[in-house]
């Protein structure tokens, strides 16, 4: 899921960075103070999840967990995932600094989308149904991220369909695993902390 330096054209990099800055700004402004520790924990989860590898065939892909971050954080997923990506680039050499903006949009935008698609249903329904919606969110975020990566590559000159097929196929096992993982996390949260999603869904005054 990390595009590396040198794979994309300059306009795509600039547009990606602009979108990322807008998303981070929006995320920071909409971040209620109670949400900051959760953002930190999810940022750390994202940072470490990239080291969990799922071997498929000759290669392997890693977990992303952007769906869970999106469900809990909404727009605040932008700054949280940005920090994770920045540190991954600095410590592990994943991605790179010039592609940081594009990578942020690729993982955080799907997170925000699944937040708006799934959180209303999660707060409305019982734990079991919520878990299913959580799974949909977790798997959906990966699928959308893979689609974003393919789209970005296509805008930089790669053929969209083969690129998309490659990226989405490679992430099919991740979708399965993260669907289960996010579903379980949502189930747990609904059991032990039902107001988690409700509190975070209310618009914040800003900090």
């Amino acid at each position, binding site marked *: 899921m*990390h*595009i*590396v*330096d*040198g*794979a*994309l054209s300059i306009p795509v990099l600039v547009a990606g960075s602009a979108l990322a800055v807008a998303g981070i700004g929006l995320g920071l402004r909409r*971040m209620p*103070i*109670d949400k*900051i*520790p*959760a*953002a*930190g*924990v*999810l*940022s*750390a*989860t994202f*940072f*470490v*999840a*990239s*080291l*969990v*590898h799922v*071997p498929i065939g*000759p*290669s*392997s*892909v*890693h*977990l992303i967990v952007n769906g869970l971050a999106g469900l809990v954080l909404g727009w605040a997923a932008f700054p949280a995932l940005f*920090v*994770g990506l920045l*540190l*991954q680039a*600095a*410590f*592990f*050499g*994943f991605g790179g600094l010039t592609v940081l903006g594009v990578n942020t949009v690729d993982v955080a935008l799907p997170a925000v989308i699944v937040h708006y698609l799934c959180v209303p249903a999660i707060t409305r329904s019982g734990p079991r149904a919520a878990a299913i919606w959580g799974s949909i969110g977790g798997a959906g975020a990966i699928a959308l991220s893979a689609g974003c*990566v393919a789209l*970005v*590559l296509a805008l930089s000159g*790669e053929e969209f369909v083969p*690129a998309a097929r*490659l*990226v989405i196929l*490679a992430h099919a096992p991740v979708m399965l695993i993260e669907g289960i993982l996010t579903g379980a*996390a949502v189930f*747990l*949260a609904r059991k*032990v*902390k039902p107001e*988690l999603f409700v509190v975070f869904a209310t618009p914040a005054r800003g*900090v």
Partner: protein
Amino acid sequence: MMKLFTTLISAIGLAVALTVPALAHKVVVNAFVGGERIEGEIGFSDGAMAGGTPVEVLAEDGTKLGETMTDRDGAFVFVPTRAVTHIFRADLGGGHVATVRIEKADLPATLSGGTPEVARPATTAPAETRAIDAAPPVRPVAASEAEKAAILEAVRQELKPLRREISALKEKNDFQAILGGIGYIVGVFGLWFAVAARRRELRAG
């Protein structure tokens, strides 16, 4: 809230525990000069090699110097013909691009048109003495060209596993890096929390 955090933190702990042997998934590329050739390897940091990938060879200004192809084990060989910095670039698809540079000064000294300023003392290595016209080459006794080539080849073969190990070592994500990263995250969000709390306090009067 506390319970959720505890769960998430134990999830992180579990993830850390699971990942210690795992390697990062990024492109690893490695190139070095061996005799008159430039040899290299392209693969992923989890150990999978990129076989059958076309490798473009570019000069610094972007002109194409040639092309080569990786074999089944992701290794490629290129014989340089011009004394310029060589940049090797391979697109592995899905946003993975590998690039590696071989500086002009590191090119084989046998290369025609080799620049005099890179000439090293003639005694450093037999391979380098051949092309340098300054100072008459110091010929080691009783070693024919064929023998020298054989020795160089043997040394190259001996060095191969070492080079692999060094590049594997470079890609290693150790515990310190992971803990350091988590530490940074805790610090950044802690700082932010403190600033937000302070602002709220000020606003409340």
